């Protein structure tokens, strides 16, 4: 049957205005007033203990409720470590579950809404989860004191057991019900750092066993339900094109296909299982209206960005001195242009989401990363208040930013499909929307394409007299609900973070920004602006060290301004890498340091060249200062992961478009980093008593410049256009 869509639905994604109406009190962050969906108390039985972050079951299990999304970065284990330590729980009794969507209880203290990002999970939860553990312990002790008729001060707690010198002892499970009746202490007493048993030491990953046995139902993609339909969408070949009609005659012939539904983001085939939906999607014949779509090629977009950096831009709030004047009187000016491609996140689990909507309420199952936004967007689409939108957060198979969406577009899409089905008179039915890898790679929400222009004035001796910097890219934040907090005088802080100021002593420095326009949706990608600013800043510094005739490490150390934590990681990485030791023939080293999300990471990359001229990164030595290291093993894992992720991108990854159509489709054309690309990695942690900061992203930014600086050590040239495969180097 041929469908003509006279009035394609208006995009259901709520506008910035809607969001602002829904947000209250902009001054204190994104404060979203939500009604709480009932008490956090589990099953309502009398033998359990249920506080928002800690449940203790009669079977002696301690459940730590994770208000965050754990997509591999290990915060479920990190938060469990904090609670278990203050509670003096036994490792074996501790498990983790995801908290329900409830901003009042579970907001990220750094955002004011429930959500995960910016490597904030441990940083914002450090006190909160310790307090939750300490409060639970105090209540268990009070329960034991009541039960045994002894003073609370005489009760000892060790590895999940309460005891008294009179010989009485009990497990947490035994006392859970009585503990629940005790008063919740307002200011529970926290342990002193020297008394920590797990923090800074070792606490095994709570998800290692399940993830080593393919356990059922771990991921959103694995969600199954009686009578569930699977939806796969034909999506527009060009960004934001809309379907004006489709012929589904052939698609409907596929056994298992139940319905074909048009929504603003595409045409959805619904089938009784995934394969028929995928197959039938390929048989749809859709007519697209490209009149508002992006029809340019990426080459053209890159030229536009480069042109922009040649013109005056919006001044970035930070900066000092008058670099233009310094440049005018400099003995010499170095001008370097950089170009960065669109990047797909390509998490191992593509997007997926299950929705069940009955007209009065909706339930979702997915690896939600921005629960509050997701709840609000779904509610807006379905005409429900957020409290009528339940989200069952599942583990996510990676995200790297992809699931944290200011527009919650995948929730909106699923909600619209469910609504269309209900509106057409069908009974409520769970619907799982599955994105194939092609949908993922071609689906936008990329790290933006970016151009930089750095102009540095030098005196006769090669010393910097001034540095002027320009960045041009599409803003991630403008037009989203986050704009009021992230954009100032037109400058999106995420476009320039890392080059708004530099950690080095420079007589004059000023950055400017340009906001480019394209219908291609863009999004934060592991470490956001630092993915490109770190590369530019740290390859420029290397170049300037060479101009000054100095060793790149010494050059940096000499010029680090006040913040000596930069120097700390630089020195540690250099020492462990044997920076000053001679290298075997054919080996070259590069160093870089980037602070992101308040963590400091320095990396030394050692490279060689294969016979075909491509770069082999042999070894990376990484030093990280993330304050108190809560879980050292996870910090090491995250550094390895960040390095691998960043390395994969600089080697071979770019999303390109020809006349607006994405050229890459799947892992055969968007080539992921593999085992044989992976260097040996050594991670060293700077001991610290500072408050803990994140580790999910900060490992990523320094690897690109460290490798580029090693290539320059070999060839005398810094690569300024990524990826390296463009230059025969990968």
């Amino acid at each position: 049957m041929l469908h003509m869509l006279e009035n394609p639905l208006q995009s259901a994604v709520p506008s910035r205005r809607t969001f602002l109406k829904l947000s209250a009190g902009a001054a204190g962050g994104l404060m979203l007033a939500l009604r709480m969906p009932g008490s956090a108390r589990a099953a309502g039985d009398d033998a359990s203990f249920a506080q928002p972050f800690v449940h203790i079951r009669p079977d002696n299990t301690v459940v730590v409720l994770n208000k965050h999304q754990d997509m591999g970065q290990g915060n479920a284990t990190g938060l469990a470590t904090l609670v278990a330590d203050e509670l003096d729980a036994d490792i074996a009794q501790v498990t983790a579950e995801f908290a329900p969507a409830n901003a009042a209880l579970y907001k990220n203290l750094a955002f004011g809404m429930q959500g995960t990002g910016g490597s904030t999970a441990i940083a914002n939860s450090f006190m909160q989860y310790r307090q939750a553990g300490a409060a639970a312990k105090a209540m268990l002790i009070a329960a034991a004191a009541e039960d045994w008729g002894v003073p609370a001060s005489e009760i000892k707690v060790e590895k999940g057991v309460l005891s008294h010198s009179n010989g009485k002892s009990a497990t947490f499970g035994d006392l859970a019900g009585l503990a629940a009746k005790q008063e919740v202490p307002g200011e529970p007493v926290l342990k002193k750092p020297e008394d920590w048993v797990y923090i800074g030491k070792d606490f095994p990953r709570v998800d290692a066993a399940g993830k080593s046995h393919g356990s059922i139902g771990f991921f959103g993609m694995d969600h199954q339900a009686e009578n569930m339909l699977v939806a796969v969408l034909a999506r527009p070949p060009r960004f934001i094109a809309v379907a004006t009609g489709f012929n589904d005659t052939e698609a409907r012939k596929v056994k298992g296909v139940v319905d074909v539904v048009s929504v603003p983001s595409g045409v959805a085939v619904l089938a009784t299982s995934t394969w028929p939906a995928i197959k039938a999607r390929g048989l749809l014949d859709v007519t697209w209206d490209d009149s508002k779509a992006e029809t340019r090629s990426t080459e053209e977009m890159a030229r536009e960005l480069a042109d922009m950096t040649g013109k005056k831009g919006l001044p970035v709030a930070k900066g000092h001195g008058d670099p233009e004047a310094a440049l005018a009187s400099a003995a010499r000016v170095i001008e370097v242009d950089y170009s960065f491609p669109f990047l797909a996140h390509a998490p191992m689990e593509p997007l997926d989401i299950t929705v069940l909507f009955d007209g009065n309420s909706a339930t979702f199952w997915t690896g939600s990363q921005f629960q509050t936004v997701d709840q609000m967007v779904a509610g807006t689409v379905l005409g429900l208040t957020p409290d009528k939108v339940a989200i069952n957060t599942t583990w996510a198979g990676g995200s790297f930013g992809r699931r944290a969406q200011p527009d919650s577009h995948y929730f909106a899409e699923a909600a619209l499909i469910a609504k269309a089905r209900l509106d057409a008179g069908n009974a409520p039915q769970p619907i799982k929307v599955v994105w194939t890898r092609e949908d993922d790679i071609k689906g936008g929400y990329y790290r933006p394409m970016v151009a930089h222009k750095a102009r540095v004035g030098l005196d006769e001796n090669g010393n910097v007299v001034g540095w002027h910097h320009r960045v041009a890219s599409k803003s991630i934040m403008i037009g989203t609900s986050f704009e009021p907090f992230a954009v100032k005088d037109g400058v999106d802080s995420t476009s320039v973070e890392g080059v708004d100021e530099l950690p080095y002593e420079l007589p004059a420095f000023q950055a400017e920004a340009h906001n480019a326009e394209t219908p291609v949706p863009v999004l934060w990608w592991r470490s956001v602006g630092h993915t490109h600013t770190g590369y530019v800043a740290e390859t420029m510094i290397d170049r300037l060290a060479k101009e000054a005739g100095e060793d790149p490490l010494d050059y940096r150390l000499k010029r680090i301004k006040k913040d000596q934590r930069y120097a700390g990681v630089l020195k540690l990485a250099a020492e462990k890498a044997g920076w000053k030791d001679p290298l075997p023939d054919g080996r070259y080293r590069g160093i870089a340091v980037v602070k992101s999300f308040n963590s400091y990471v320095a990396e030394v990359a050692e490279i060689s060249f294969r016979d075909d001229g491509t770069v082999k990164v042999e070894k990376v030595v990484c030093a990280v200062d993330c304050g108190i290291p809560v879980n050292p093993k996870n910090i090491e894992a995250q550094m390895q992961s960040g390095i691998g992720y960043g390395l994969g991108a600089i080697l071979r990854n770019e999303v390109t478009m020809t006349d607006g159509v994405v050229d890459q489709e799947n892992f055969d054309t968007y080539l992921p980093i593999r085992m044989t690309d992976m260097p040996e990695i050594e991670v060293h942690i700077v001991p610290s008593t500072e408050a803990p900061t994140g580790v999910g992203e900060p490992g990523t930014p320094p690897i690109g410049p460290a490798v580029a600086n090693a290539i320059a050590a070999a060839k005398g040239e810094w690569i300024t256009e990524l990826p390296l495969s463009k230059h025969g180097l990968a």
Partner: protein
Amino acid sequence: MSITLTINGEPRTIDADPETPLLWALRDELGMTGTKFGCGIAQCGACTVHLDGTPVRSCQTFIGDVGDASITTIEGIDGKAAKAVQAAWQELEVPQCGYCQSGQIMAATALLAETPKPSDDDIDTAMDGNVCRCATYARIRQAIHLAADKMEA
């Protein structure tokens, strides 16, 4: 059309088109979701299962072609190599997001069953088809060596 397959030692009958990839038959028809979908084009290894002990990509194996070959999935692997691999995986805490790990474990188990003491080159060859976007590769390599030691012990 109804097709009978031997999965983890049991006969299982599936009513689906013979061109259905084994991956989707396992996941959707049989509810065995340990085998993962990553790419659908034999490029990532997330869907790896064993066909008569040999690792294959179930996304490109069609149920009509399996015949009476014996299929083993992550839910059913057993034996010395599998036990050693899963123990090593847990001990070294290999998984991060974990989504690729069923496939990694299936590939590693097949490698060790064939080559109980693999070299780094053997590991490269056997594992390069398995993508891990979290880049847990260093620990995967370590865990394979550890599993080899466990098998010897």
